């Protein structure tokens, strides 16, 4: 019998490999925004999230306000609250308060997905193993991308700038294809965002994202409420 820690690490390997290449793109982006290799890796180590970090770096680069940073992180990362609530129903008895405080650091989309798919209750060791693997991929990839971003030919590093956005599209498109309501919400959010970019340009990019997303999601909730008990 493998220990839960080992099992978690093994289940975390595909996550780590995926993170490695995406965070490579983040590293390039962060250095491009004027951050050092160390700061870029530090951001990845402390946040362990893609969209929030990308938006955070945009705010840093634009010299945005702290309030803007707080609101943007809240809006983008609020999905983790939902995942945390869902996962909290599935925890092993060993999950005492200190374990919950520690493991909540590692609730990402992918770790949540893999933990949720487990048959039995999730133990702290299992989650730590998976978080450890994911951490190595995420922070290692960021450092490599940030370091290589300075060395790579411009043609390659600029093409890597699209990696994170490509991943975002890969998250959005399949559910939008399956569900008309998700499709409408996604198109609405994109439409409002385009409006802020080209028409109402006084708003900073962070606030534009918040307003676009909140308005589109509220529209979705008002007109297409989800079925009871559906994810």
């Amino acid at each position, binding site marked *: 019998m493998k220990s839960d820690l080992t099992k978690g690490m093994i289940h975390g390997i595909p996550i780590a490999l995926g993170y490695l290449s995406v965070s490579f793109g983040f590293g390039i982006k962060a250095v491009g925004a004027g951050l050092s290799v160390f700061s870029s890796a530090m951001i990845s180590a*402390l946040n362990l999230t893609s969209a929030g970090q990308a938006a955070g770096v945009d705010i840093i680069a634009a010299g945005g306000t702290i309030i803007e940073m707080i609101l943007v992180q809240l809006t983008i990362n609020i999905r983790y609250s*939902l995942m945390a609530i869902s996962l909290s129903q599935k925890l092993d008895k060993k999950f005492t308060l200190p374990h919950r405080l520690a493991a909540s650091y590692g609730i990402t989309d992918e770790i949540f997905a893999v933990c949720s798919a487990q048959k039995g209750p999730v133990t702290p060791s299992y989650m730590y193993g998976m978080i450890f693997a994911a951490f190595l991929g995420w922070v290692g990839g960021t450092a490599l991308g940030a370091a290589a971003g300075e060395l790579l030919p411009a043609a390659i590093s600029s093409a890597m700038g*699209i990696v994170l*956005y*490509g991943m975002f599209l890969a*998250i959005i498109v399949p559910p939008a294809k399956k569900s008309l309501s998700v499709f409408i919400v996604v198109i609405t959010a994109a439409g409002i965002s385009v409006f802020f970019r080209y028409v109402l340009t006084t708003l900073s990019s962070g606030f534009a994202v918040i307003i676009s997303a909140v308005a589109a999601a509220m529209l979705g909730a*008002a007109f297409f*409420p*989800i079925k009871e008990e559906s994810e």
Partner: protein
Amino acid sequence: MKLAVYIAVMAGVTYLVRAIPFTFFSKKIKSRFFRSFLFYIPYAVLSAMTIPAIFYSTGSVLTAIVGTAAALILSYFGLPLIVVALSASAAAFIAGLFLK
């Protein structure tokens, strides 16, 4: 110095958003509107972040459009995240070679 504050705020908010519900939440959210809102918000955020920013992500709108098209097509057919992400980049890179 300002950078350290930005990073600390970013990390603090991201941690609390995860830790507060994970540690203290045991009941289910009742409001159907709020649960629906929470269901839609990730897609809405990613969409608003991606469009139109993706078109400026490669330094050339033309190569970015090629990359975006590649990502849309591959994700439509349900390919894994990482395949979609790297193909978008490869497509943008190849488009860049032709546009030189």
